[in-house]
């Protein structure tokens, strides 16, 4: 396979938007770079920018490797990506409103009704609930990959509790600290106002009649893999970071327990999955949630962000229909590509997938984080056979996609600088009619040679992402 290199043309010529960086890199002594990389490592450790890895010793924390070669995007390209994401997230929010109200799209036969209504992520309790501004996914993390010049695909629309934005911000801070001279030479669009933008959105979706809302961030706790991010965002926005046990509901109103007595809460940026939010409504064994919070939410006394039930729109079995949603709700042609998807619940698709396992990427419909997936070309015979059995046993639990030729970018690895595959997760914020994002997003890079899996839980690293202004 031929891969698109973000920095160089196929003939080794440096791409125009990387020219200055390339010149700087070549002119900078290797020892200085090495020293700076060590400095970055130390700083990340001291600041404690870590994440926990599930399946490892409890409470163990790891650093996400940070690479000092930025991923640079020219402004023109970004503008088109931005338009594409705006369009997509707008349509996804309209879809959510529709299926929790009149279900026009199902009536029109654009999506098989059972695909939506029998989906485990479809929350019947949300039927008819009017959420402020008709927005469900206030925060979306759209995963984009490039397969060629101007050719971007959406891999996933993360509409539940997407994470990673703190790394985007910390990576920028680190780059500016390590190499201030680079920012003097490049017009890099700033991203540091993200927390302000987020707070503004959260305040904008407060329940009706609340003019000065109390906003909180709800975390599962200090042992969650993304705890650093939860506390970081709370601190940056200047709001309380709460756990489920800090909140309680009385007469359908949510309060937090403070040293001065109960205080009313209006907007909850929750980083807990639907299933764990309310033991009275969802999983009864959840110790992370708040009993009765769903009733308070349905009564319109508190806003949850994102809304309950957004998972039905980013589910892998719904993903293939997103282009149709864009056409249906907006009457526009999709700007960003969807990856062609085989739905293994369909007999023909399954037969094709089983015959081509070695070429395809197979994903669990409800999986996330790079767990439970098969990358055919990078797998052993045993792994492929294992998945074959899984597919035959439970075809509707899987989808398959062609293995995309993910672009790569030079990256510092043990043997020096070598190309590694990457993706991009911009964070799209919505309230009412307004959809905003900061330029760029989080670039994740697969550090293992040839690997196409960029998730940090699978050993992926990150890069600072630069959108160059004209």
């Amino acid at each position, binding site marked *: 396979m031929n891969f698109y290199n973000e920095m160089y043309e196929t003939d080794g010529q440096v791409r125009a938007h990387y020219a200055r960086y390339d010149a700087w890199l070549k002119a900078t002594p290797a020892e200085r770079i090495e020293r700076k990389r060590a400095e970055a490592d130390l700083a990340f450790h*001291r600041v*404690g920018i870590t994440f926990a890895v599930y399946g490892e010793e409890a409470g163990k924390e790891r650093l996400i490797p940070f690479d000092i070669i930025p991923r640079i995007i020219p402004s023109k390209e970004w503008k088109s990506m931005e338009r594409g994401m705006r369009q997509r997230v707008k349509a996804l929010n309209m879809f959510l409103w529709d299926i929790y109200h009149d279900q026009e799209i199902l009536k029109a036969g654009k999506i098989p009704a059972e695909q939506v209504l029998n989906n485990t992520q479809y929350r019947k309790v949300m039927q008819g609930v009017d959420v402020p501004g008709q927005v469900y996914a206030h925060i979306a993390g759209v995963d984009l990959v490039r397969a060629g010049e101007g050719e971007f695909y959406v891999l996933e629309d993360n509409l539940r509790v997407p994470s990673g934005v703190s790394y985007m911000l910390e990576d920028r801070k680190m780059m500016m600290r390590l190499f201030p001279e680079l920012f003097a030479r490049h017009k890099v669009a700033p991203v540091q106002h993200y927390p302000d933008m987020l707070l503004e959105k959260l305040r904008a979706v407060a329940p009706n009649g609340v003019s000065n809302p109390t906003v909180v961030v709800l975390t599962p706790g200090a042992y969650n893999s993304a705890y650093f991010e939860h*506390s970081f965002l709370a601190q940056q926005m200047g709001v309380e*970071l709460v756990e489920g*046990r800090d909140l309680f509901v009385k007469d359908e109103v949510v309060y*937090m*327990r*403070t*040293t001065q*007595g109960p205080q009313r809460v209006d907007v909850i940026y929750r980083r807990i999955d639907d299933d764990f939010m309310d033991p009275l409504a969802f999983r009864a064994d959840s110790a992370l949630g708040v009993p009765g919070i769903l009733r308070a939410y349905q009564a319109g006394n508190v806003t949850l962000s994102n809304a309950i039930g957004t998972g039905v729109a980013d589910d892998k079995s719904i993903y293939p229909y997103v282009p149709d949603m864009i056409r249906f709700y907006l009457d526009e042609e999709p700007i960003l590509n969807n990856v062609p998807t085989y739905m293994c619940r369909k007999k023909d698709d399954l037969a094709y997938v089983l015959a081509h396992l070695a070429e395809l990427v197979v994903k669990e419909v409800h999986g996330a984080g790079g767990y439970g997936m098969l990358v055919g070309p990078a797998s052993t015979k045993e792994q492929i056979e294992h998945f074959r059995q899984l597919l035959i046993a439970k075809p509707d639990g899987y989808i398959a996609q062609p293995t995309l030729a993910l672009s790569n970018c030079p990256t510092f690895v043990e043997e020096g600088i070598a190309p590694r595959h990457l993706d991009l997760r911009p964070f799209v914020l919505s309230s009412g009619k307004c959809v905003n994002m900061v330029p760029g997003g989080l670039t994740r890079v697969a550090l293992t040679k040839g690997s196409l899996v960029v998730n940090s839980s699978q050993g992926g690293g990150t890069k600072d992402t630069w959108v160059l202004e004209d």
Partner: protein
Amino acid sequence: MLSRTADHLFWMSRYIERAENLARLLDVTWQMSLVPQSEEAANQNWNAIIGLNSLEAAYAAKYSAVNSDNVLHFMVSDPDNYASITSCLRLARENAHAVRGTITTEMWETMNATWLEARGKSFEHIINAGIGEFFEWVKMRSSLARGTTLGTLLQDESFHFIRLGTLLERADNTARILDVKYHVLRPHGDEGATDFYQWGALLRSVSAFEVYRKAYRDVITPERVAELLILRNDMPRSLHFCMNGVLKNLELIANSHSGETLRQVGLLHAQLHYARVEDILAHGLHQWLTDFMDRIYALGDGISKDFLVPMAEAA
């Protein structure tokens, strides 16, 4: 402020203060053990440390003999001992971690770096580098934690809970140090050179040797040591000084539940304010200190009930 946040802040500062005072106590015991004395007397000193922290059972489960090596190992870096210096630093960091968004970045980095460094020090490593060095390091890290708090944190409720934790813990620890050393020293007091070194070491352990000189300009006597550590209003590690701060900070965070706790603090503070060392000694110092430590414990309990443990949902 969230009750849970206040709880983490309170315990964060208690644990770091506890680590510091434990380093001080071990340091003075270790220094005293260098002065010629009978083996029995030496072991009695080490035994007292185990007894002081009510760790007899946990200690006996791991070690058969009480001697300097074993006790130091147990109290300095034994991860199984929840009261060891290393454990205290870990707990301080865990509490800080839970509220890292509330404290300043400098405070968090200090706590985190302290723990990362402590985790990297094995007991062998500590002994080889000189255990005195290690105690100095713990004291410096605690000073740094306190300094970043004073130098960077907004002096709102969170600050008051931190100060409350520090001062309450210090009052308890100073009382313990005084109790265990006074206890061991007093019966053997023979006015000799040994006595001078022993009292000198005790004063140094609470950074009071120079203060003593300045305040009394006279030979070291047990009565004056007791007076300095209990009643001096301006000595930062004395019980009186600590209670000044506890009272002040508690007044600043008062809520509708905290009246009784505040009254108890006021009472204890007044008793220190108007006490005479002769009366305390006549009463029996050990008994007086035991009573004081019980009351400190009750205050911690009261603060916890009034502010930290989630309050009744109606209110």
